[in-house]
């Protein structure tokens, strides 16, 4: 079992009535009204400190991702963060999990090949190469790509990056969206033939097929926990079997919000406002931004129209409180024993080998985040590491030199 800490880097001080006053947390939240650059500088530094703290405390990897124009999580360049993390964790057996550079909007896409290779070199071969399609908010609204081109651009960028990493010859790329006369990136990654590839997704069958056909790790990045994910994950594993692949649990990555305290009651006291902040404010995305026409391909669109209708939400987040989120498993929160038991159950039920835990949630302050990381690393993590050991699977989707279990380490203060 590999367990990494994911960080979104949200704005931690939105006003209490944010979701009533503003249209959307993404694309059009007014910076000049809501944000302060000095404070944001502090957040970035806290974010880096929190991830490095998690690495020292014993987590297996540190995950960052790319988003634009929002207060929900704004690392427009995850590789800037990744570079700082790689440097700060040299000597530790910790993966740099970039979840990562958005392929359709990185122009030209060999920039991803180059920056990931830089990170792999700086970190001594510890990179996991996430290859996200990107959200409609980021790709279509913030970066102007026509929705219907997003997947085509993604596939071309992916093919180009892989060829750039692995080709022994300098080549010309005559693509539909990009043309390059002499592709020969410096550097190339340490990991050969290339770093492990993870494909984040939100449940579309097109993305499953892409990940399975290329033998990549598919990561279901949901904020709604193991109960809600069951249908999607069942569909994924069924598809894996249909395509004749093995049921290696490391084929699946899954994101889970986790909050640990001394007791269940204490967890509620400490984390409730931050969990509610996350679901009420950070996920306050205008519906039209999330579903621009053309973003779903024809098959997915028809499937959606037949099964759940257009834009129909299954949960009304604003009317839910901390206890609802905990009860529905969106957040796993409580004492170490509670969190251990529930996480173990979710991991086994969904068959997850590469777990990502969101240990900083919404408005959570720095000190509380460190406490969450510390308790998780000491009281929860050691009990989960061996979950798949009896089945004897190899985690092909983890940097080769980090595949052995990490030795338990005291948390650095």
């Amino acid at each position, binding site marked *: 079992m590999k367990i990494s800490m994911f960080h979104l880097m949200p704005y931690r001080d939105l006003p209490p009535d944010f979701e009533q006053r503003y249209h959307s947390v993404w694309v059009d939240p007014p910076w000049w009204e809501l944000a302060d650059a000095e404070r944001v500088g502090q957040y970035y530094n806290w974010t880096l400190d929190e991830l490095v703290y998690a690495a020292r405390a014993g987590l297996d990897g540190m995950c960052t991702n790319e988003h634009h124009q929002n207060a929900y999580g704004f690392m427009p360049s995850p590789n800037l963060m990744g570079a700082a993390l790689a440097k700060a964790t040299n000597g530790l057996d910790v993966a740099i999990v970039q979840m990562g550079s958005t392929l359709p909007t990185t122009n030209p896409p060999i920039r991803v090949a180059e920056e990931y290779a830089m990170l792999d070199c700086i970190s001594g071969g510890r990179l996991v190469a996430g290859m996200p399609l990107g959200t409609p908010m980021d790709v279509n609204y913030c970066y102007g790509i026509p929705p219907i081109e997003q997947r085509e651009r993604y596939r071309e960028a992916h093919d180009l990056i892989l060829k750039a990493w692995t080709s022994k010859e300098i080549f010309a790329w005559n693509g539909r969206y990009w043309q390059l006369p002499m592709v020969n990136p410096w550097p190339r990654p340490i990991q050969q033939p290339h770093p492990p590839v993870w494909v984040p997704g939100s449940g579309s069958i097109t993305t499953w097929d892409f990940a399975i056909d290329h033998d990549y790790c598919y990561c279901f990045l949901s904020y709604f926990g193991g109960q809600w994910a069951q249908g999607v994950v069942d569909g994924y594993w069924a598809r894996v079997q249909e395509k004749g692949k093995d049921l290696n649990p490391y084929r699946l990555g899954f994101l889970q919000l986790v909050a640990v305290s001394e007791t269940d009651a204490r967890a509620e006291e400490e984390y409730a406002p931050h969990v509610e902040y996350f679901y009420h404010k950070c996920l306050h995305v205008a519906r039209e931004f999330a579903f*621009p026409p*053309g973003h779903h391909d024809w098959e997915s669109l028809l499937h959606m129209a037949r099964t759940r209708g257009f834009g129909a939400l299954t949960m009304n987040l604003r009317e839910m409180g901390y206890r609802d989120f905990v009860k529905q498993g969106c957040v796993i929160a409580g004492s170490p024993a509670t969190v251990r038991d529930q996480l173990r159950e979710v991991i086994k039920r969904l068959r997850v080998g590469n777990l990502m835990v969101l240990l900083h949630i919404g408005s959570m302050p720095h000190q509380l985040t460190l406490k969450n990381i510390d308790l998780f690393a000491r009281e929860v993590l050691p009990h989960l590491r061996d979950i798949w050991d009896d089945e004897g699977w190899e985690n092909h989707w983890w940097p080769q030199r980090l595949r052995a279990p990490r030795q338990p380490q005291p948390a650095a203060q």
Partner: protein
Amino acid sequence: MTESVAAGPRGLFLEVWQGRLRASVKVAGQGPPLLYCHAAAGLRWDDFLDGLARHFTVYAPELPGTGDSDPHDIYQLDSLWDLVLVLGDVLDALKLQGVPLVGHSFGGMVAAELAAHWPERFSKLVLIAPVGLWREERPVTNWMAVPIEQMPSLMFRDLSAPAVQKLLALPQDQEELVLAQAKLVWALGCSGKFVWPIPDRGLHKRLHRVRVPTLLVWGRDDAVVPVEYAQDFAAYIQGARTLVVEGAGHVPQLERLDQVLPAVLEFLRG
């Protein structure tokens, strides 16, 4: 002629683009041929087209990917240039030459591109609330960013007009409804390839090449492409006439059918 086309248009499929596309064209009416380019949400055979079909044989090609064409056909096109040339293939296959051309909204932009590309191929041009130009201080509304339930009030100033009510009527059958909605969203996605994020692919550099008599039709209260754009189109197209329709929004030909249809027919026949 007063032939009724209540049965709706007939469908025609044409192998074009070296056999890579099976273009869908709807045809109705009798009389001399006329080419119609539909709006972003796909072709709907409405009362305005019915009115035109009483005097012309209306040929309405569907944007590849939309309507009755294969949904994946949109991936055969890389750019607006490809779209113009595919429509050139369609015109060739239909042997249309020297015909009047009518386009609405997104289809207005397509029609303007066609007329700029092949000024000799068309006899007259009617552009109804076309997109294609951009004024920074008065931007065109991004209709793809409007929640679907707000679409009608964005499109129409007068929702009560009978032709509008007819257009907005939903199919009763559940499966038909689902398919119609999916096709509408998909059509917006397909046309989005040529207008997202800003519906300006450089038409202003080419519009001067339109050398046929042109009529611009605009609703006074157009909330998608503000009526000021009529002046811009008129400035680029020599001799263009402008009809501004009071009390109408982005679809004046349905909101004020009784006014727009006769004016368009008079222009086309005059």
